[in-house]
């Protein structure tokens, strides 16, 4: 049959036996997600229906998810009023997959979706957020769209005019060394491909290194696929996908998981051996400005951020807590920790990680992603430098065009927070 994973997903979603690169299709959507920008989508949605005499109603409320996470709790009257507008829309349309600012349901959208079992292998997932690509970790075709496009999805239940993208196959071999993680792998991929190297393509990950990654690690490598310009990242579903869904969400997925055909055609094939991969740093002000940590050792830092949809999971908090346990942050550093969901927050609390972090001097923040994009909690002062486990470091990203952001893994963030400057976690005593 010679199709890649995404080609197979699109064939299923359009009711065809096959699709080819370049075909223009209108796949039906299994899950449509928005966060605070649902307020914009609602505007555009009402515009679609203006003058038609029809009542605006989403095509299938069970397939719409809305998560408040960018400005939580609201920092201004305008945001609070937008959130109120969203609540009214949710109630009117009977949207159950709504995650408000509450400890028993809240968190960052790209953690909330997998955690609640909203994503299944083979799904078409769209979101009004670039990092919607995260959900390829569960074998879905997941990509970001604009607010107007989402209004169209809400009205019709499908994405119009999707050109079937070609795929880039990345085969990853070797074992990640001590102190080296999935974040370092994806930074390496972005550095190698560049910010436009995967434009209009899907990155399909293969190899023993990928098979051995937990779902948490797979979420990282799919999350940042967009930073190489990719439409999506995807990990073909396997036993780990089945295990994650069963243990985390209680969902039992069918065994009929999508695999690429042995003779599938790829636009490009890349081999990456991680055996000698050093921790990677994305330096200001581009995500593809990637260097080995050894090249930036000693760079002074003011604010360390652990969290976001990229690295706010229990695995990440565990690494940071273990590194900081019994020690203190350097005097010149402040550390902000944003667990990716309240569920993770509770788990970290039960494991004692939060006390370890607080005693070391970190500030534990409520789950949310405002800091990453400089709209809430944790702006930088003029001339300040942040070291962050988030996913973007464009000029002005963390709230100040006169600040700088270096991107890294949780292991590097922790080691550096102790030193007060960028440090190599491999040089720490275990």
């Amino acid at each position, binding site marked *: 049959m010679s199709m890649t994973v995404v080609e197979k997903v699109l064939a299923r979603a359009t009711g065809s036996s096959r699709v080819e690169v370049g075909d223009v299709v209108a796949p039906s959507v299994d899950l449509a997600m928005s966060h605070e920008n649902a307020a914009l989508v609602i505007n555009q949605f009402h515009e679609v229906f203006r003058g038609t005499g029809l009542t605006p109603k989403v095509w299938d409320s069970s397939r719409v998810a809305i998560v408040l996470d960018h400005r939580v709790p609201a920092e201004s009257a305008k945001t609070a009023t937008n959130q109120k507008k969203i609540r009214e829309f949710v109630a009117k349309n009977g949207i159950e997959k709504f995650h408000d600012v509450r400890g028993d349901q809240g968190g960052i959208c790209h953690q909330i979706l997998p955690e609640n079992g909203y994503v299944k292998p083979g799904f078409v997932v769209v979101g009004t957020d670039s990092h919607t690509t995260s959900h390829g970790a569960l074998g879905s075709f997941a990509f970001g769209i*604009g607010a107007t496009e989402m*209004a169209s999805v809400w009205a019709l239940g499908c994405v119009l*005019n999707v*050109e079937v993208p070609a795929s880039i196959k990345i085969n990853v071999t070797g074992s990640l060394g001590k102190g080296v993680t999935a974040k370092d792998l994806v930074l390496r991929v972005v550095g190698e491909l560049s910010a436009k190297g995967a434009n209009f393509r899907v990155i399909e990950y293969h190899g023993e290194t990928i098979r051995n990654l937990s779902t948490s690690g797979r979420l990282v490598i799919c999350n940042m696929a967009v930073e190489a310009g990719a*439409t999506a990242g995807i990990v073909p579903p396997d036993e780990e996908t089945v295990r994650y869904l069963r243990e985390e969400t209680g969902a039992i997925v069918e065994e009929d998981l999508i695999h690429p055909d042995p003779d599938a055609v790829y636009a490009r094939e890349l081999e990456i051996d991680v055996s000698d991969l050093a921790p990677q740093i994305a330096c200001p002000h581009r995500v593809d400005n990637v260097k080995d940590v050894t090249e930036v050792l000693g760079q002074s830092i003011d604010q360390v951020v652990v969290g976001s949809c990229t690295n706010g999971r229990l695995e990440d908090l565990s690494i940071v807590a273990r590194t900081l346990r019994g020690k203190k942050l350097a005097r010149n550093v402040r550390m902000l920790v944003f667990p990716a969901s309240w569920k993770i927050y509770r788990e970290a609390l039960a494991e004692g990680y939060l006390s370890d972090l607080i005693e070391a001097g970190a500030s534990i923040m409520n789950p949310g992603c405002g800091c990453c994009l400089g709209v809430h909690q944790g702006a930088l002062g003029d001339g300040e430098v942040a070291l962050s486990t988030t996913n973007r470091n464009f000029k002005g990203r963390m709230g100040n065009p006169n600040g700088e952001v270096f991107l890294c893994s949780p292991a590097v963030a922790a080691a550096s927070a102790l030193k007060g400057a960028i440090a190599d976690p491999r040089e720490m005593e275990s």
Partner: protein
Amino acid sequence: MATVLPEETPQFAFADDEELNRKLRSGEIQKSSVIVAGSNFGSGSSREQAASTLRGYELIVVARSFARIFLQNAINLGLQTVECPEIEAELGHEIEITPTEVVNKTINRSFHVIPLPASRREVAEAGGLIPYTRQRVLQKALHETIGLESK
């Protein structure tokens, strides 16, 4: 920026280039002026505001290549985009855009254009995704009313 409406955005166009921003806001740069850009124009966000700020001034963007989500958003919002991989132009040059090429009249050279795929042209011709979707919503409602299966 997540909750800023399209109408509220034009004053932010090229905000980090004070002079350009000022010229846009004062009207010194007229409607239908062209921005000529290099490759991967629009990279870095799924937010429509990047396209709506430019649409607010009725600018046309000619670029060597575009980032995916920006291009999609631009077409959806009715911002005119022209993919011209070899374009060369300096500030102040006069250019003419046709369906197949961009002519730089000042240096007397023309450059080929990669046309929009037919499906996207339909959206652009409808005036953007909202009118295009509205047509389909009405079609769907009509089919349901007269008992036909929706497509």
